[in-house]
């Protein structure tokens, strides 16, 4: 699992370099450009890629817009978006380098309504019912302290329960999860479907490498079906009453569209696309739309 453009796609060395660069007094945008986004050309383009990631907040139905929490906040892009909608925003991350970077970023931007703290997603240092909104972006993209990453259902259960605990009644949890087509480990969730996926992956390992890679990518698309089924189930198990699923197209870094994960809504979206292939429309028509999108977003209400 990998979240394109999120902190999880960077090495520990890069994160440490990022923290060291802002520690030397370099502006955070410049540090990001030098270390993490060498292709970014100017301040405006940085803002644009950062910016649009927060517009999902217009889909959220909340009675109060007072306190928000960004769990595993990374470099703070989502925190910055939350800070424009909520009175007060808390950023937490278990790792030191992204935390140092985020502190420098919000200090430099004079974001008076953002507070940063070091904490793991599995043990949030807040009392029950503290926040109106909690964000877990790039879920399963990084490790959660105290829980083994080899067991994603356990990670999900631990973090979702903790997020549910700190949410006020009527509050909303955002979960962003990316299912990248990178060869590697298959997420063992989704019951029978995931077991089948694992069996297929094992079977194709006997094939030549290039065939295996191509086949693994296809299998990973099927794995998205498992994600689409497993996450809502986990959210309900954690105590959330209402769950809405969306797709983000093409990626979290460039969230050009946010589509309700329903058959006819996806069909309507595909018809709007100039380049949409007939095969995509067929898959949507067959209700296999989760395989079409890498980035899944869930809004769960208490």
């Amino acid at each position, binding site marked *: 699992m990998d979240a394109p453009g999120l902190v999880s796609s960077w090495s520990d060395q890069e994160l440490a370099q990022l923290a060291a660069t802002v520690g030397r007094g370099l502006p955070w945008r410049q540090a990001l450009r030098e270390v993490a986004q060498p292709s970014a*050309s*100017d*301040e*405006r*383009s940085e*803002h*644009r890629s*950062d*910016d*649009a*990631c*927060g*517009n*999902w*907040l*217009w*889909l*959220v*139905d*909340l009675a109060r817009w007072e306190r928000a929490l960004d769990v595993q906040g990374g470099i703070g892009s989502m925190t*910055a*978006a939350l800070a*424009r*909608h909520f009175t007060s925003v808390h950023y937490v991350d278990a790792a030191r380098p992204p935390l140092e970077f985020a502190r420098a970023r919000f200090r*430099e*931007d004079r974001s008076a309504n953002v507070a940063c703290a070091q904490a793991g997603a599995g043990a949030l240092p807040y009392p029950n019912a503290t926040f109106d909104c909690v964000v877990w972006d790039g879920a399963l993209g990084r490790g959660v302290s105290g829980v083994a990453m080899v067991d994603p259902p356990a990670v999900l259960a631990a973090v979702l329960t903790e997020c549910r605990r700190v949410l006020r009644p009527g509050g909303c949890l955002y979960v962003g999860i990316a299912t990248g087509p990178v060869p590697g480990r298959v997420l063992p969730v989704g019951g029978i479907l995931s077991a089948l996926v694992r069996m297929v992956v094992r079977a194709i390992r006997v094939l030549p490498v290039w065939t295996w890679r191509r086949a693994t990518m296809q299998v990973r698309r099927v794995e998205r079906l498992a994600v689409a089924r497993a996450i809502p189930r986990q959210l309900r198990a954690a105590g959330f009453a209402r769950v*809405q699923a969306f797709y983000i197209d093409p990626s979290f870094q460039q*969230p*050009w*569209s*946010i*589509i*309700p994960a*329903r*058959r*006819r*809504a996806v*069909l*309507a*979206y595909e018809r*709007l696309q*100039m380049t949409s292939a007939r095969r995509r429309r067929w898959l949507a028509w067959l209700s296999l739309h989760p395989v079409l999108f890498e980035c899944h977003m869930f809004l769960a209400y208490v």
Partner: protein
Amino acid sequence: MKHELHELLVAADRAGNLTREIPEDGILIVENYGAIPPAVRRSGCYVWNRGFNVVLLGRDDAPRYFCKCRPIADANLERETAVLRALHSDPELCTIVPRASGARDSEVQLQLNEFVTGWPYERALPRLTELAWVESMAQILSVARMVSRRATDLLPSLLTTPAPAPLCVAAANALRELGAVGLAADVLQGLERALAGAGAVPPLLQHGDLWPGNVLWHHGSWRLLDFEVFGIVQTPLYDVCHFVRNCWTLREPRVAATTTWVARLASDARDAELCRRTILTEARHLGLEATQAAGVLAYYVVDVTAQVIRRGTPQVAWAPLMREVLAAGELLRGGAALRLLDPL
């Protein structure tokens, strides 16, 4: 959806059907350009952004409304809503221009349109025969001409000046901006000379972004979309140049990848001849001479490039347009006249 957005949608919905037709989760965000509220730079200036667009889905998940959401500081949206309302009130234009209404609060403004179903010209264009392409371009440009002419009567306040404007004066700022990003002085001088030689043209409100993506075949007639910059450009034939260039790019992507449209226009290729003929025919309908048409063509490439640069887009976005300017400059080298559009 956020309560604030729902309230604005209800306020913009003059017919009062929206709440009944659209479920709470019937919202699809498309063209998500930038955040609302927008990010603020350290200097305190708003970063240019266009917010996002929304398709509102009915209870059967079929698109019902199209809605543009913009930051409150965006000046174009309110203007566009006013333009659309004025144009839609005209009996001749109500089948061409979408019906729109607007609402705003202290943070966000929106424009609500009925969702127009149809076949986008952009999608049909690559598969059209040569004859069908030329005919459809003529039909669409005739519709655009009618909108421009009616708009000049309906929205006289948009006209900067009723008198003919010299092209070299209209292009002065754009040329300065191109110079600022490194366009060579001899190219600038060549363009200035050509624009001065073309003289003045009578003002005519232009759509400003008439490209195949903004044209829809709907129930047996052409509809124009996206009037966000309508009337800002007031040079006749500008829309024609923009439309024909974009049509050519979509029909001839391989040629467009290796050569500029302006250079191609100067060639004997069949597609170039069709483009020239379309532009000249429209110029005649607008009462322009061939030299004036050539002047507008030069003005167009200069202005459209400067517009994209002005938005702060990275160089990679405006470099292809700059190559069009350089191609025009190349044709004008040594004081030559721009003879691209001389009558055939």
